[in-house]
């Protein structure tokens, strides 16, 4: 009896987590403008999405493009900056190191809305015209701590002598960094990059405050504006379904690879 309840609880939880996703996915296969009205099966929304045959189709695609571009660029910069910062923090000692780690953690806990408003004020203060540049700068700002957080454990797992061993064998510091340190840190940098990429994709508040008035839209700001204009564009439903599927596939692939790597190491 107990077991039945435990199972029921589990399924209830899962249902609550996944119902909205399933709901969107199911209703992406019907033409109705109003979400929740089933007007028969049709792939028309998907066709519209890919051929641009819909209201404001080009701006939706532009928003998707912006989102991906901003995420890629800021994740790449954040990975670079975060890795260097992590190496620096790792080489600090005692209280200085603890202090730097604490300072690194604060921006992650800080509510997005505050980060967004403060960045907005900073850009205004510095007279930087808001647009692509400011959004990317803002995204780099809030993504970098996540990279630091994923690279630091790799550094502490690393044998502290291997950098010295490289120098000892004749490598200049830059060679030791490239040939020994970076290969060791790569797994941490990759997961840091992915984390930064998703954080950037996901962001609404910071983008909203730093995108300026040139009409720059990412997916999240586009949807927000769209929803305020009077109902969601129905083509967003297939788009969200596709994004969800891509993330799902990536996650499964990533996990499988990690399992395989762990297994081959154990053998």
């Amino acid at each position, binding site marked *: 009896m107990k077991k039945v309840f435990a199972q029921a609880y589990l399924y209830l939880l899962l249902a609550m987590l996944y119902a909205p996703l399933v709901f969107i996915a199911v209703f992406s296969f019907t033409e109705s403008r109003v979400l929740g009205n089933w007007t028969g099966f049709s792939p028309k929304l998907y066709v519209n999405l890919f051929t641009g045959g819909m209201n404001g189709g080009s701006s939706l695609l532009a928003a998707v493009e912006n989102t991906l571009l901003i995420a890629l660029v800021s994740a790449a910069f954040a990975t670079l900056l975060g890795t260097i910062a992590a190496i620096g923090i790792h080489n600090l000692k005692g209280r200085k190191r603890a202090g730097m780690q604490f300072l690194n953690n604060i921006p992650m806990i800080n509510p997005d809305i505050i980060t967004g408003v403060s960045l907005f004020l900073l850009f205004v203060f510095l007279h930087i015209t808001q647009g692509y540049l400011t959004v990317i700068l803002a995204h780099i700002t809030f993504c970098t701590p996540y990279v630091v957080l994923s690279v630091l454990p790799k550094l502490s797992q690393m*044998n502290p002598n*291997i950098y010295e*061993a*490289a120098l000892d*064998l004749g*490598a200049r510091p830059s060679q030791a960094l490239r040939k020994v340190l970076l290969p060791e840190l790569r797994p941490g940098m990759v997961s840091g990059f992915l984390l930064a990429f998703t954080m950037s994709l996901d962001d609404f508040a910071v983008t909203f405050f730093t995108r300026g008035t040139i009409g720059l839209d990412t997916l999240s700001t586009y949807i927000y504006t769209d929803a305020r204009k009077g109902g969601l564009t129905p083509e967003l439903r297939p788009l969200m379904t596709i994004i969800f599927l891509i993330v799902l596939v990536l996650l499964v692939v990533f996990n499988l690879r990690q399992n395989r790597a762990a297994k081959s190491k154990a053998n």
Partner: protein
Amino acid sequence: MAGDYIIDIQHLSKSFGGVKVLDDINFYVRRGEFITLLGPSGCGKTTLLRQIAGFINPDEGRILLEGKDISSIPPYERPLNTVFQRYALFPHLDVFDNIAFGLKLQKLPAKEIEVRVKKMLKMVSMTDYEDRSVDSLSGGQQQRVAIARALVNYPKVLLLDEPLAALDLKMRKDMQLELKEIHRKMGITFIYVTHDQEEALTLSDTIVVMNEGKIQQIGSPIDIYNEPVNCFVADFIGESNILKGRMLRDRRVAFIKHEFDCVDEGFGEDVPVDVVVRPEDIYFTTDPAKCQFKAKVNSCIFKGVHYEMWVDTDTGYELMIQDYDPYAVGTEVMLYIDPDDIQVMHKERTRNVLDAEVVDGNHVRILGAEWECEVPADASAGDILKAEIPFDKIELLDHQEDGKLAGEVHFLLYMGNHYHLTILTDDGDHLWVDTNDIWDKGDLVGIDIAPGGIKLRKADD
């Protein structure tokens, strides 16, 4: 001749955060020699090795390699290679690429790299392991790869930082022999760091014994074992009976309240000394004519090759004896020591000597605390005098807060009938104490001075 020295270290000093880790280190290494830096953890031996490797810059002094000062040359330009304590292999490279790392940086032709790596793999008995990932190797195998990776560059000197510390006993013994064999075959100078005295005695041509950032003694393993220069070396290398003695005249010494013939000269007459007698150098006899003193066996333990016995002498001292034949507990035995086997050492100090600031007619300030004592009539407040405190006038208390000063037991020696302790006070000063109480290294103690224990004299005496 200076040309014979491949490494010459001159007046090397290093401090970390105000603590002197190395204090005026001087020694040289002959070409082709196997030299070992030996000492307890924290004695500065690894810091010294890392300075030779170039990972740390000295505060003072210089390091000469073949007569050339290399103190300010970065590690990647020094023709030296290091074997690290935890191997420090590159996990993302296989065995071949680990060993070839240095050669590839030198941009040698691929053919030559392959020949040299294979030759090295053969030298460390790891042929056919080229393609293995280093994670799949045992500790001993990883260490072999680490040695091959360093030696393949034909360094002028190979530096080894406790390379066998992480291996189990049996493997360590095997690797010691192999290291010695590799050293013989390659003819490269080895500088080896270890805290294991047995390893040092087995491997080295020369041993440098270090403690607290200073060199205690340099010599061959036999010299160091047979003729330690002070109590620290005698205690650290092998087992020993360390005793207070008195040099009566040349070749005659008194300890454990008996007189013995010895071979030492030049100490002067009636001079306090320390005496070391190795436990295997005290012999049992049944001949009353040979007997120098009597004792009663108080414990007897089988140690594999020999028996280790503790005896109480007729004069109240406890001695350790090692012998192939056991004597039952309680047996009265007759003992003698050969003159050759008695090592007499100068006493490093006979009492504590500290600065004392006069506070008033019967108080002085020593080590920051005030003590009652007889102050000479001609001294006035603020004068700095020297205070002499005998070892047995310092009292140690169980709780740090009960004493006027607090400290910890830093080093201890059993002297046959009492313990001689070195106490490190919380302010970093040393005090030496004789006591009958049993303390352990690292114990936190309160420190007091017995009434009448302080004698003052003028500072310039």
